[in-house]
């Protein structure tokens, strides 16, 4: 089974049925899988804070939401995470491509990578780092944890997890 399919299977098994995405090359496979599933309403967002607003509304409407985005989005969404998701105590699994880690070909991506964990830590957001494919075995438990505690939770998935960027 492909890792993208396994991830989306876990989301569906946990009744996540409203997913907003802002694309990243690393996330292309998982976004394609999300789009294909009948159980999921997929709504692409133009910016990640907009996506978090959509997720807040969906959750208040009775659906379990998730957002799929790049780690650069942490810079975009700090205010939304603090004043909407956390202030109103809402759950939000964030599946995040962790650009700028080992095997990254684009230097500028490293500039946000070095801040990513520090920012998440500063926000007291529970953070999990998927480096090897077997790390995804914890996704089911992470999703259950997110909807148990009504908090945003970050799942950082780096290039090694996704199998790198091919020949460089």
């Amino acid at each position, binding site marked *: 089974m492909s890792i993208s399919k396994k991830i989306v299977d876990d989301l569906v098994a946990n009744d996540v049925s*409203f997913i907003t995405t802002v694309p990243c090359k690393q996330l292309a496979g998982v976004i394609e899988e999300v789009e294909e599933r009948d159980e999921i309403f997929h709504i692409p967002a133009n910016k990640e804070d907009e996506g978090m607003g959509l997720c807040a509304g969906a*959750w208040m409407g009775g659906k379990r939401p998730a957002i799929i985005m790049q780690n650069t989005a942490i810079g975009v969404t700090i205010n939304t995470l603090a004043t909407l998701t956390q202030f*109103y105590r809402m759950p939000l699994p964030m599946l995040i491509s962790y650009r700028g880690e080992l095997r990254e070909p684009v230097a500028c991506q490293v500039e946000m990578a070095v801040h990513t964990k520090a920012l998440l830590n500063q926000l007291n957001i529970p953070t999990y780092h998927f480096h090897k494919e077997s790390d995804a075995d914890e996704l089911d438990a992470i999703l259950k944890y997110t909807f148990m505690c009504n908090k945003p939770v970050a799942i950082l998935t780096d290039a090694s997890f996704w199998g790198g960027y091919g020949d460089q």
Partner: protein
Amino acid sequence: MIRSEILREIAPIIRDQLVVCNIGLPSQELHMIDDQPTNFYMLGTMGLSSSIGLGLALSQDKTVISIDGDGSVLTNLGTLPTIANNVADNYILLIIDNGSYGSTGDQPTYAGMKTSLTAVAKACGCENVVECQDVDTGKVLQAALDSKKMTIIVSKCDSGNIKLPVITKDPVVIRDRFMTAVAS
């Protein structure tokens, strides 16, 4: 008319609907005029009223009205293509367009200058976009509710504020009360 006068006029129309209300003075005014469990007051996060309302409308069947401002829509302009391409006929976006950032001291917005949010919404692909004058807002809103079609209303009004207290309700209480109303 200024925003608070419009809210006073439409209060009986929106009382039984789910309302997501914009940060700052709009929420404070609605809270003072007609506090209802069906109102979700935004205490922060400028710009996301339309997004929260759309997510809510797409996730359940009751009608949702997002009350937004021209400044807040400008801050989250990406919302309009998302709304246009994800039609929810139980969704109404009411933009109270007074051409200014009311909560921060009435600084002018570009919507009060060359930019028409009505034209922007149409260009983004929104199908039912109605621009009206402040005095007609109630009538236009009722027509939008009756049509059962997703509608964007741009209500052009005067800039100006009334003095009133901040909302001191706990956000989790606001949210829980609202979710109970949504689910009832």
